[in-house]
């Protein structure tokens, strides 16, 4: 059917193939080539952060963060249960126990007022996803962490370009992680970045990312052979992938501006449904707070959402749900601790529906989606 509306279409900036050809002909397709350096510099400048390292994926950036935080068996890491699996797995694989805290009903981010009660003497890290690229209460969380001697890994997986009180997401915690997976605003298929906001992690991060060797020092001529000095793996991406990403980074501002227009069309088109209490819309406060990664609505029940999803599907519209709470997964039940019943997590997970959202979606298509939602609710 020609009038199917996809949930997502990866953006093509235009110069990807050109830069990838340059990378191939330049003879450097392994990691840390010229395009990796360009991307890192570009991210550092765009986000005003001292150090960005490209990684194979967002999960590798989290894996690196877990190693840098030096968590181990017996340690606890606080995070929301309404989050991507890698948040828990990266720390669990180092031996730490994920401790889940409920989310706020408004932004769907970790409820900062519940964090301190979940802190024990074993708590080493708080991981703070910014759901849908909208900031959690990161400054309050930084205070809690500071008071308790805990590190903060800021999960800005979907938050590239969003701000919290004028600071870019991912640059506030001790470490920040970003995703450039195909589904993100700016992407390279599989890719990510680790932002190092605390200088004491710089040298070790470089080593962990280079298979646990001092190879970066070797290439800078600081040592005459490189050798095994730490744990680590090959967390750096091929320069071909970085070349692709660079084309997208050059267009970052325009991509976000275009997505904001789409987001606003949705918000305007559905506002009165929220006013009537039919559905709930995302809560966005302040200039630059949202990179418009996800447009979601929250329905009243799982049944209602299931029916709405099927109703839209019949009209060729692909809307999808999101995270299954981690505490209810087989691994979560067996190896993690939930701090309380997490009612908002459970409810949100069952009732949230993401609407089609991508760079190239056109106004008539957005109107069609809005009309579909309105038709379902008969208003």
């Amino acid at each position: 059917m020609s009038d199917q509306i996809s949930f997502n279409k990866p953006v093509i900036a235009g110069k990807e193939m050109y830069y990838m050809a340059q990378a191939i002909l330049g003879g450097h397709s392994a990691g840390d080539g010229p395009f990796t350096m360009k991307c890192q510099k570009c991210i550092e400048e765009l986000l005003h952060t001292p150090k960005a390292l490209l990684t194979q994926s967002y999960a590798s950036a989290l894996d690196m963060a877990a190693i840098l935080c030096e968590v181990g068996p017996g340690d606890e890491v606080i995070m929301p249960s309404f989050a991507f699996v890698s948040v828990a797995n990266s720390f669990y694989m180092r031996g730490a126990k994920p401790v889940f805290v409920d989310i706020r009903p408004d932004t769907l981010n970790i409820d900062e007022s519940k964090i301190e009660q979940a802190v024990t003497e074993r708590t080493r890290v708080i991981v703070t996803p910014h759901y849908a690229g909208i900031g959690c209460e990161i400054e309050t969380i930084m205070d809690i962490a500071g008071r308790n001697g805990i590190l903060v890994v800021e999960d800005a997986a979907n938050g590239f370009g969003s701000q919290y009180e004028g600071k870019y997401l991912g640059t506030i915690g001790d470490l920040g992680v970003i995703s450039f997976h195909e589904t993100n605003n700016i992407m390279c298929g599989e890719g990510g970045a680790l932002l190092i906001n605390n200088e004491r992690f710089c040298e070790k991060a470089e080593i962990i990312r280079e298979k646990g060797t001092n190879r970066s020092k070797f290439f800078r001529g600081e040592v005459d052979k490189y050798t095994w000095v730490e744990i680590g793996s090959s967390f750096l991406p091929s320069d071909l992938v970085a070349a692709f990403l660079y084309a997208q980074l050059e267009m970052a501002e325009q991509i976000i501006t275009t997505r904001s227009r789409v987001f606003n069309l949705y918000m305007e088109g559905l506002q009165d449904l929220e006013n009537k209490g039919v559905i709930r819309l995302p809560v966005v406060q302040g200039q630059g707070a949202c990179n418009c990664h996800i447009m979601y609505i929250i329905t009243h029940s799982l049944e209602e959402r299931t029916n709405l999803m099927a109703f839209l599907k019949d009209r060729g519209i692909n809307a999808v749900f999101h995270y299954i709470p981690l505490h209810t997964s087989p691994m979560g039940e067996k190896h993690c601790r939930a701090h309380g019943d997490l009612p908002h997590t459970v409810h949100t997970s069952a009732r949230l529906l993401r609407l089609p959202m991508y760079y190239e979606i056109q106004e008539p298509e957005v109107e069609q989606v809005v009309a579909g939602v309105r038709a379902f609710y008969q208003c």
Partner: protein
Amino acid sequence: MIVNKPEFMQRAEIVRERGTNRSQFFRGEVDAYTWMDVGSSYLMSDLLAAFLYAQLENMGQITRQRNEIWDFYQKALIPLVNEGKLRLPYVPPCCESNSHLFYIILPDEEIRDGLMQYLKKENIYAVFHYVPLHLSAVGRSMGYEEGQLPITESLSGRLLRLPFYYELTRMEQERIVDQIFKFFSR
């Protein structure tokens, strides 16, 4: 990763997909995917797979050409073997090589380093290889020390890899071999 044992298949798929049953989800076998096991994002971007595919299609040709480069080094350097100046790679009769690299083994580390410097002056880049893991910072912190693995230590200090790549020409190879002969006849 090559999964040779069927019993690893399903878990390998999960571990590679961040510890989730996402692959089953995409095949329509489950209606939502969730956290099942340890894992990370071990899969590569399809952009890279596209690049790799072109190379895989030409694997036969690439290997044939590399075998020729390998054979040339092997034959051309035999006289130096007979003079006891160096040793060549040993390929057991049951093995077939993909000619990934060509190394020579020198009598001692001093000669190896000397040859490496000599070739470098001629703009020929020959390089050593692994520093033994047991003598790395991590290995030593585990209590390993020199002398425990004598063959590993000796060969690590004496091995030199010669330039080796698909586009290496016969003329370049001849120049490399000539310079190695010159080094030994100084």
